Structure formats: C-alpha cells, structure tokens
C-alpha cells in the first residue's frame, strides 16, 4: 500500500448482477464511493431473466426493484453500463483500472418512449430471451430494465439506420456517432462479481441439444415460462407451439461429470423443482419426470423439495439418462436405466429440459491476477496469502462459487466489508 494510507477510497464493483448490486449498495450506504461497472446495457444479471425465484416462487423484480431504488437515491453509487475491465495495475489503495466502453448510441436524455423502435427496420436476436426470439434494432433490454434506457444495436447502425433513428427521437437522445472508448478509473479496492453462464449444452453430445428444438436448457425454460418471454409465458413445444404437457427434466446435464463440469452446481436441482411447478401450474393433466442421480436441495430448501414430491404427477426417476434420441415422430426419446428396478427405458416427451450447471463467466475474458485466483473450475477464490500480501481485490456471488441468490447476497455483503477495510487501510 502507498505510504500515508490509501490514495483512493473508491470501491470498484465489476459485474452488476444481484451480487454486484448488493456489494455496491452495502458499501455506498456505509459512506463509501462506489463505481459499479456492468458489461450489458442494464443491471440485474441472470436473475432478471428468471420467471420466478425459489423457494417462494416470487417474481424477481420484487427483489431487484427495491435495490434499484436504493441505487437511484444514493449519490455515492456511480453506475457505468456497457463497460468491461481490460486491465488492473497498482496495489491496494491505489489501483488504476483500464475500462472499455461499448457504444449504446443512446444518451441519458432517453425517456424510453420507444419512438426509435417504431422506425427501426432491423431485427436482432433478443439476448434477454437467449435468442429465442428477435427484437428491433432499437430496443429496451426488457420491461424492468435499469437504467430504463433504449439501446441501439450495432447491426442497426451498420445497416445505416443511424440518421433515421436520430430524427425519430424528440429528446435528442440518439448519438449514432458514438465510438468505443477506453478510459482509466482509480480505485482503492475491487470487488469482482461477474457471475456465471450456463454450461454449453451443445457440448453434451449424447443429449442431442442441437438436434431438436424441443430439447432446451434450464435458462431457456425460465424464459418459456415468463410472461415477457418468447411465448408470452405459455410453456409450449418450440417445434410446433403445442402445449408441452409431458416434460422431462434432466439433472446434472454436464455437472458432476469428469467429461464436463466436475462439480455440483448446487442450484439446478432446485431450479428443476421450480420448473416442475411451472408446468404443473399451467396444465392440469401434465406429467413431469425428473431424472436425477440424487436431489440436492440444500438446507432450508428441502421443504420446497418435499412439497413438489407430494405432487403425484411429478415423478422422480433415479437415473442419469445415457442418451437422448429423436423418435420417428420427431419427439425426443430419453434413454437409460432406472436404477431402482433396473428397467431399461426409452421414453418420448413433448419437451426435454437439460438442467445445465453454472460455469463462472470469468473462464473467458479478462480477470484479475492478484488478490483472487482461479480454482480448478474457474471460480475466483481468495488467494491463500492475498489479504496478507496487501491485496485489495475480492470476489463474490457466483463468480466465487456456485451459490443461490441468498448465498450470493451474503457473500457480496462480506466482500463489501473486506473492501471497506482495504480502503480504510485497517
């Protein structure tokens, strides 16, 4: 640390999911200046893309909205969206952080009126719905986006729509000439909360993810069930938009598997229990089969497991399927051995959901090299001698391990406290 105490008392938080938001607010409300950097155009991370939260099945906006209010009210939090860190130099108390900003082409005068969207003729994959549908070249990330500001896709600019969009905006919010920028920030401590991405289901070649639109992953299932998803909240078979009434949920799709992710992702069992509830709420006559090795509903969440287990139309089949084939009628056939009675099965379904695990986002792209280190799976964990060596970089949320929302929030609060200690020089 530089002589005479830290030069900067600012805390930089990288990644604006539930963990980053929490760390930023906790530090700011304690009286510290915070810069919150987010790569995408809006905050909330993966949680915004859920239909509902386990275990109470409440809507994610309940939890997020109040946090957005706290950020809005607190002048100490400076939010920067569409920004990524490209380098860190210096030491605790005086880091220089290089940042790259991707253009949004929309400034803060935007009122989200949507006039630009009405004149755009480009269509781009909708990232909010994992590309399951399209949005216009001028779009609002989603209906609860924070900041509530439009984004112009680079595709629309490339298609020469810039001037037309600019003319359509009566608030002068559109700037088609924005370019990618790089700049430096000063911070005394850094909290890394870059979260996760679903393990790539296409790598599970025996599960035929790319061979049928009716084989999807668990984050896509969240969108299929959500009112602002591609089907308006109806759980329909993607191939023909017919109701998906016979549904297979495949646990540990790539998790606990030496050929893929060797660790238990900890939340996908609960995610699938939630998905069983989504299907059963929509269809009186639905059948849901959960294929599992063992159900891992940790601590207080066991009650949720017990509740779903009581539903006679949800079957728990103790078996990790060997493979999924496409039947002659085009329906996916789940094949394997039921381990309780050793029956070999080959069962057709309307929809198969692969419960893929959470893989740390940090496995790709820039990550800090001091303070934290990558464990064998790519999660950023404290270095054995990190804090002792006077380092001020900490990790939280799923960037630090496979956690649910409440555990992510706890770890974020803990990281905020460590960051405060670092910038105070205590």
């Amino acid at each position, binding site marked *: 640390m530089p002589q005479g105490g830290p030069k900067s008392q600012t805390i930089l938080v990288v990644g604006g999911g539930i963990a980053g938001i929490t760390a930023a607010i906790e530090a700011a409300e304690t009286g510290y200046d915070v810069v919150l950097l987010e790569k995408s155009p809006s905050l909330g991370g993966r949680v915004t893309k859920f239909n509902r939260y386990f275990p109470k099945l409440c809507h994610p906006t309940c939890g997020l909205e109040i946090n957005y209010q706290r950020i809005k009210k607190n002048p100490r939090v400076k939010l920067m969206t569409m920004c990524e860190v490209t380098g860190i130099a210096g030491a605790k108390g005086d880091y220089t952080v290089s940042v790259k900003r991707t253009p949004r082409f929309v400034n803060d005068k935007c009122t989200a009126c949507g006039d630009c969207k009405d004149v755009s003729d480009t269509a781009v994959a909708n990232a909010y719905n994992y590309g399951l549908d399209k949005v216009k070249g001028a779009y609002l990330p989603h209906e609860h986006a924070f900041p509530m500001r439009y984004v112009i896709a680079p595709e629309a600019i490339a298609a020469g729509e810039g001037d037309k969009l600019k003319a359509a905006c009566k608030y002068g919010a559109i700037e088609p000439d924005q370019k990618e920028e790089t700049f430096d920030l000063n911070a005394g401590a850094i909290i890394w909360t870059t979260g996760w991405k679903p393990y790539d289901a296409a790598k599970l070649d*025996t599960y035929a993810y790319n061979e049928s639109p009716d084989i999807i992953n668990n984050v896509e299932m969240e969108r299929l069930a959500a009112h602002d998803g591609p089907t308006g909240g109806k759980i329909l078979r993607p191939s023909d938009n017919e109701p998906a009434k016979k549904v297979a949920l495949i646990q*540990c799709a790539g998790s*606990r*598997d*030496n*050929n*893929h992710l060797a660790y238990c992702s900890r939340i996908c069992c609960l995610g699938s229990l939630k998905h069983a509830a989504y299907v059963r709420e929509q269809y009186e006559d639905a059948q849901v089969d959960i294929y599992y*090795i063992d159900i891992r509903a940790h601590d207080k969440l066991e009650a949720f497991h017990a509740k779903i287990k009581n539903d006679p139309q949800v079957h728990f089949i*103790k*078996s*990790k*399927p*060997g*493979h999924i084939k496409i039947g002659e009628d085009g329906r996916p056939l789940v*094949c*394997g*051995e*039921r*381990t309780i009675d*050793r029956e*070999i099965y080959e069962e057709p379904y309307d929809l198969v959901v692969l419960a893929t695990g959470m893989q740390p986002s940090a496995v790709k792209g820039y990550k800090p090299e001091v303070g934290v280190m990558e464990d064998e799976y790519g999660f950023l964990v404290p270095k054995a001698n990190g804090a002792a060596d006077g380092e001020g970089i900490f990790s939280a949320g799923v960037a630090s391990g496979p956690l649910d929302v409440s555990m992510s929030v706890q770890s974020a609060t803990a990281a905020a406290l460590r960051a405060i200690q670092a910038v105070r020089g205590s």
Partner: protein
Amino acid sequence: MTKPAPNTSEKYDLGFANWVYENVNGGDKLGLCMQCGVCSGSCPIGEQMDHGPRKLFMMIRAGMKDEVLSSNTMWNCTSCYRCVVRCPRSVPVTYILQDLAAKSVELGYAKPNENSKFSNSFWWSAKTFGRTDERLVTAKYYFSFGVVEGVKRGLDNLKIAWGMIKTGRMHLTMPHQIKDKAGLKAILAKAAEIEERESKS
C-alpha cells in the same frame, strides 16, 4: 492372485469388495462409482445382461461374490467402450468387466456358456493361425455344443454363410495365416510368463 475369502456359505462376503479393488484390473476405481446408471443405460446390449455394470458394481460392494462371479454381464460385454466414454466418474467399466470374466474362469465360476465357448473358439483361431477365420471360428463354436447341435446350427445359418460368401465377407480358399507363426508363439509365451509373474507378485 490371492483368492477371495472362502466363506461361500454366506450370501454376503464382506471382504469381496476389497478383494476386487485389489485384484481386478481397474477395480481400484470402483469406489468412484456413484450409481448413476449411465453405463447400463448406454450399453447397446444392456437388456441382454442379467445385471448390467452399474448393478454389478453395487453387488460387488454388497459382497455378493457368487452372484457377481457367475453373472452373464461380463460375458455379454462387447467391449464397445460406450460406458467408459460416458461414465461421469471415469470408471474403466469395460476393463473391470473383462477382468471379472477372467477371474470367474480362474476361480471356476464360469460355466461353459455361449459366450465363453465363442470366446474360446475365437482365441483358438487367433492363437493357431495368427488370424481369425470366420469359417473355422464358427465351426469350432457350433461343434463345441456337440455334433448334432453343431450340424443343426450350421444348417440354420447356411443362408447367412452363403450371403457372406457372395459379398466377399467369407472365403472358400485356405484359411489366411500369418507368416511368422513361431514369432507369434514366442510373443504369447512371453505374455503368459509375464502374467504368471505379475499374478504372483
């Protein structure tokens, strides 16, 4: 190879799992099995096995020595290695099955059955000619069930044989043999010697 504890009167031999861990090729990896079912569910002929690898491994842990060593599971394994490729715990399923088959012969459990007879015929041809010859392997295999059964099986499969001859999959000429049969004999003798030495150590 030390023999497993000789308490055959008991249904469950609690020392059996340890004996497998120590004596069967790949057996030391059995502790990794999490009973997920991928091996048995992936096996192309899983339905023809009395137990399938997953259950067999559980029976080993339970100490069901007699049932394990007289199972048909290892004899029906075709060594396609699908289970090995897919096992999430990297258990060398095929190797374990292969060596369990060998152990069941050594310990006198394997009754002569379709699979062991075929295996013997195959090995006889390979050892004698340095190659496998369809006609000789098949004939030796059919007649290992006795003359009457041998003729019956031969006649039953005449159509297939004729089809194979027509498409050039089977020949009527002299069996192909390797040139250096003495060399092959020396290799096999050396292998037997090494196996003998290693099973003693």
